[in-house]
């Protein structure tokens, strides 16, 4: 197990592995997302309160979910990179950050589009939207710090520390925002996602989440490849890779 882990952490090995895996994940995610969209937009019954407007959850919920998942991936990678000084781990963080930020942005946009028919306004200081906004700020901070250093490895390690501080803080932010929201009696129109949702609506949602996960896996691997090439551009194996026709 450990030797496999060690082998995986070697940039050339990972690069070639990702080269083979990315197409599989990418095609699988496309098929599953199409299936989920069909299920969500055609098969699922309209909501008795919200009509067809609720269908945006098939984008909104998976995006919000992935925006948090990407931060978790970054936090684990940051810890591995700092403790075992593994170069690949920092490449994983750097690859996941823009994807996570995009998911957070998508969740905010779809959330506010959904808000228009529900609340009559594009923005309400709802607890989940506010948390999502702060999460987007955290991503922006990571990206800004990671790119601020002339030496990539220093930037990687500095932003890994920031990620760990952020991951300790994130649950506190989440609960404080919830507390703040309940005190101010904010509108809570969001349907619960979970057991109280009709199976006809839930199944496409789960399919969409699976599709988004595969999409994330495919693109994070592709981006890791880019980050690895950028970080290892002076090594022999990258030179050989370039020279190879």
């Amino acid at each position, binding site marked *: 197990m450990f030797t496999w882990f060690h082998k995986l952490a070697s940039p050339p090995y990972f690069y070639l592995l990702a080269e083979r895996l990315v197409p599989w994940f990418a095609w699988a995610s496309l098929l599953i997302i199409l299936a989920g969209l069909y299920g969500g937009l055609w098969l699922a019954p309209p909501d008795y309160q919200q009509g067809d407007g609720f269908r945006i959850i098939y984008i909104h919920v998976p995006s919000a979910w992935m925006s948090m998942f990407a931060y978790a991936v970054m936090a684990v990678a940051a810890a591995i990179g700092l403790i075992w000084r593994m170069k690949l781990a920092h490449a994983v963080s750097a690859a996941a950050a823009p994807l996570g930020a995009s998911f957070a942005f998508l969740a905010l946009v779809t959330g506010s589009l959904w808000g228009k028919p529900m609340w009559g306004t594009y923005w309400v200081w709802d607890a989940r939207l506010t948390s999502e906004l702060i999460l987007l*700020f955290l991503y922006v*901070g990571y990206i*800004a710090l990671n790119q*601020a250093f002339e030496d990539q490895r220093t930037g990687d390690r500095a932003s890994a*520390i920031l990620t760990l*501080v952020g991951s300790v803080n994130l649950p*506190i932010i989440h609960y404080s925002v919830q507390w*703040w929201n309940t005190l101010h009696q904010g509108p809570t129109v969001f349907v619960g996602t979970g057991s109280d949702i009709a199976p006809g609506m839930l199944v496409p949602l789960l399919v969409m989440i699976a599709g988004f996960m595969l999409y994330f896996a495919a693109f994070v691997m592709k981006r890791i490849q880019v980050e690895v090439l950028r970080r290892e551009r002076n090594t022999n194996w990258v030179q050989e890779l370039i020279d190879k026709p």
Partner: protein
Amino acid sequence: MKLAALVRRDLLLAYRRRGDVATPVIFFVMVTALFPLALSPEPALLRTLAPGVIWVAALLAGLIGQGSLFKSDYEDGTLEQLLLSPVSLELVALLRVLTHWLVTGLPLVILSPLMAMLLFYPASAMGMLIASLLLGTPVLSLLGAVGAALTVGLRRSGLLLPILILPLTVPVLIFGARATALASQGEPVAAPLYLLAAMLVLALTLAPFAIAAGLRVSLES
């Protein structure tokens, strides 16, 4: 005692550069005074907004003051000597933040009732205002110090620090401003104060490690 010598050094340096130390406090006073000009002199409105205004001003003043926390030690090579010395960098960092809070944060807390009065914040709630700021501003100092440690090696770190750290200060802002607002309405404030205290304990425990790690990384290239 090694650490006592360092604290003494920091206090001595702060005393000799009193002007720099006063800047965040002056900033706090000015920002607070700008709100009535931007909004309206209407007492009822200002009283409602006072907790938020005071907390946002304290937050910004605290973060701006943190930017230079390690800058001069970084530039003149003192930080390198501290890193190579046998004292624990975590402890040095913690003491540095606390000394800095003592000379910049504490005056701000002491001045806050005056600014609160200008915003028609009720006198009966001043005690709670001070208590919440006493618990909250050290957390802001510690978080700001993490940002200062991570950006100390960068030439253009001025605006980067707030971008990194402001999202992390949200809980302190929420609970601090909430406690202040509840106190002005004569309602119990124990819950937000306890939560602020819990965050202070957490920050005192964990932030020194992040600050020290940040300083080591900043010095390594």
